[in-house]
């Protein structure tokens, strides 16, 4: 129960193609996260799965059954909206019970299910309150309660945490992860926050401009991004992409005679990517590259250091927070060669 499969789904609004042929599968019990920048089509894709938008092409299958033409309520999915979308004139109880009442469930059964859902979400003391008397986090939980009470085949979350403050977001993120473990239901979750994506997902779908850039586990995406877009989108601070360079003699050759030895490669890499934590600061004598500090952000445990490297340009380095760095200070850099990422001239991993 709860396999969601998209086959070459497209969606256009007039002449504008928003989703350009997306195929993917959310296996039963899997937590799939759609992530991408604003306007990449991730919310539209979720609404297509929900049935709130009609597809322009392709098909959507739930548990093997083609639901492309079905109304939202016949797909067996629940959705949690970004803005909560609670019925303001109903109490918390009424909000959670609404779907069951609509489905004609017996009163006693409704009562039992609503109270069970409220218990799970710690909403029991608030059952008689109206949404306007609740805090943001409580409203979010009511929205989730409304979704779980129907025992759907799958849950759809549309950026559910984006209206919460940072502390509450972390807490609710953990609650959603626990809920997923508890219910074991398929969940499809949309976010633009890659930290949410990394922490919650079994499988991440990175979208850009209506197309799937890569599908994989958080670790796959982090350690083996398929292209420069994914490389830069996943990870914070983002991966450094060194300027295009020519490869020859086991080294990348940059301007001003600067070169980085990378050893023998099968393909011909054009762009080298390196994450900030894979660059270390060192004394100038031991350095592979010499650089000077242009800007430093103190984050507590870490320093987020921006350095300028002659022939290469600006790089971002994660350094120990205890280091005291001044702007203009010369530093040496060493790259962890085992962690470098190589892309061809089209930005595709080689």
């Amino acid at each position, binding site marked *: 129960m709860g396999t969601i499969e998209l086959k070459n789904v497209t969606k256009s609004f007039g002449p504008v193609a928003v989703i350009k042929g997306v195929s993917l599968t959310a296996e039963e019990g899997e937590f799939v996260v759609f992530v991408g920048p604003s306007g990449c089509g991730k919310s539209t894709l979720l609404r297509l799965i*929900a049935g*709130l938008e009609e597809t322009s092409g392709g098909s959507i299958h739930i548990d093997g059954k083609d639901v492309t033409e079905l*109304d*939202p*309520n016949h797909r067996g*999915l*629940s*959705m949690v*909206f*970004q*803005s*909560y*979308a*609670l*019925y*303001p*004139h109903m109490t918390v109880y009424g909000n959670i019970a*609404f*779907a069951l009442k*609509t*489905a004609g469930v017996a009163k006693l059964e409704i009562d039992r299910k609503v109270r069970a859902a409220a218990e799970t979400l710690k909403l029991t003391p608030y059952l008689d309150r*109206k*949404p*306007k*008397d*609740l805090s*943001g986090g409580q*409203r979010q939980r009511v929205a989730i309660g*409304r979704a779980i009470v*129907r025992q759907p085949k799958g849950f759809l979350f549309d950026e559910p945490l984006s*209206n919460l403050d940072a502390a509450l977001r972390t807490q609710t993120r953990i609650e959603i992860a626990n809920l997923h473990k508890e219910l074991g239901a398929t969940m499809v979750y949309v976010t633009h926050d890659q930290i949410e994506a990394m922490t919650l997902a079994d499988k991440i779908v990175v979208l850009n401009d209506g197309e799937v850039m890569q599908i994989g586990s958080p670790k796959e995406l982090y350690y083996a991004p398929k292209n420069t877009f994914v490389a830069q989108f996943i990870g914070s601070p983002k991966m450094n992409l060194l300027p295009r360079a020519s490869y020859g003699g086991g080294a990348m050759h940059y301007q001003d005679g600067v070169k980085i030895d990378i050893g023998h490669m099968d393909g011909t890499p054009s762009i080298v990517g390196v994450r900030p934590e894979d660059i270390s600061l060192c004394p100038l004598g031991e350095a592979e590259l010499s650089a000077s500090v242009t800007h430093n952000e103190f984050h507590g445990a870490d320093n987020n250091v921006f350095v300028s490297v002659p022939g290469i340009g600006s790089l971002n380095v994660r350094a120990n927070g205890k280091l005291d760095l001044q702007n203009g200070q010369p530093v040496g850099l060493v790259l962890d060669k085992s962690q470098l990422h190589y892309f061809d001239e089209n930005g595709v991993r080689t």
Partner: protein
Amino acid sequence: MKNKYKDLPRWIVFAIAAFVMNFPVISTLSTALKTNAEISRDPGLWVHAPTLNNFAVVLQVTERLNIFSYLHNSLVASLIGSILPILVCFPMAYAVARRGYGTDVIFPTVVNLRAMPLIIFAIPLYMMYQTVGLLDTRLGLGLILAVVNLPLALLLLINAINDVPYELDEAARMDGARIFTILVKVVFPICLPTLATVFIFSFITAWNEFLFGLMLTTSEAVPMTVGASFFFSSGGGGGQWGVAAAVIIVASLPPVVLGVLMYKHISRSMTAGAVKG
């Protein structure tokens, strides 16, 4: 002590404004409580010898004059004229606001009805009513009052539905609600303040309407406004100003009471807490 007097100038201004704006009402009330002799002797606001005689005359049922019948006619016609536009306009407003139906032609046409002088309906309506037997009936009067109230009702309800977040409709669709359930269980309760406003304004407009009452009724369905005019010269001879004032007071009471009862519903917002603002 300082605070107590700080607002004094403000209250004085309020009191003056309230007095000026309500002067016609106060003057009518004072006239209604005077004897005919006092009215002709002293037209001022102060009542030297208050009397309820004028009201007694008004409430007396005679062969020619029956205020209870007029009140009853007005009540029925006004209820038809205020509830029917809501029943018709609410689904239509939903279709216009959510689906964009009729935004090009129907909506502007209906709203433009408001701009037309009502007399334009008079002749065709009279002939039509004669044919279908609606002349001098409460239903007939109520129907035309509903038409009069339609444009404002539609306009206000479209705005109200536009203010209901669309995500609530979508959430209800996910919850298995069909369009009728969405309208009745979700959108309707949220629009209650506007519906109350539409009801009150429509009722008052219908209650105070004179032209159609005069034109379309003769004896059976005479509304209060037209009936009141019968009292003006009820005694024969000159104007019975005391009686006229009393009948106006009685005629004004129902909409005033309605307004006071429903005032608190008018401006209340229902959507608080629905979506993150």
